């Protein structure tokens, strides 16, 4: 078993708002992140898959294919978009780094051949990131 990681980048805007709370409560809980016009980040996505090396090609997954899957499933949907308004999974879920990692996992699960999705890591900034391993409680 070997782990293979591919990175991709997208730039998006978002804000944090729980519609069940008052404006004051949203500002109190989310601070500047509640600004209703949103703000942006350069996100970095790292997708890790695990699998066995094909004895003929020496690959776990063809990296070109993995790049195309990430582009089609994630980057083309998220890049240069306002996540709250333009990405369906965030119509009702706050686009926090945690929720973005979970949403990307759901977009990718079952789409990458010959391997198992092991980890989705989303960096909002170099010093803030979330990892999702497909676990639930």
């Amino acid at each position, binding site marked *: 078993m070997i782990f293979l990681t591919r990175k991709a980048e997208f730039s998006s805007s978002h804000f944090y708002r729980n519609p069940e709370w008052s404006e004051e409560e949203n500002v109190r809980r989310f601070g500047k992140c509640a600004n209703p016009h949103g703000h942006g980040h350069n996100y970095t996505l790292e997708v890790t898959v695990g699998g066995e090396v094909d004895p003929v090609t020496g690959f776990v997954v063809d990296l070109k294919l993995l790049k195309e899957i990430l582009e089609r499933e994630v980057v083309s949907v998220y890049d240069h978009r306002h996540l709250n308004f333009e990405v369906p999974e965030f119509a009702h879920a706050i686009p926090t780094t945690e929720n973005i990692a979970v949403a990307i996992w759901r977009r990718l699960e079952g789409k990458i051949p010959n391997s198992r999705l092991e980890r989705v890591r989303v960096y909002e900034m170099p*010093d803030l990131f979330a990892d*999702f391993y497909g*676990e639930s409680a």
Partner: protein
Amino acid sequence: MTPVVHFSRRYRFSASHRLHVGAMSEAENYATFGKCNNPFGHGHNYVLEVAVAGPVDAATGMVVDMVALDSLVNAQIVERFDQTHLNVDPLFAGDLVPSTENFAIEVEKMLQESAATLGVRLVRVRMEETSNNSFDLLAREPGDRVVF
């Protein structure tokens, strides 16, 4: 079913240290630690990476209140060690050598309880001594998938 996410933050501080064992001779210390044994110490820009895990709160979309996590780590670790000489800190005043391995282990112990007060599990502590040199402590539990 609520997704469980690991949330990580990186914190920076600068400190000096000297690797030295009181019970060893000067020659033995130098043979063991080389220039890290220089009597006046030397410094690093440390990076501490802290990962905590928990279910994503449906109301906030978060696993932990980041402001509260930052306050705890800043108060417990960054403010205590930033711009200090580690050997002078009570942590390393005894026989414990302030290697980055030992430092990471002690920091993990200090943060365990704090993480619990925030309602999350501390799953990884990484201490980078330089950008070429880092140590990870992983807390694994039965049923965990790959945690790295």
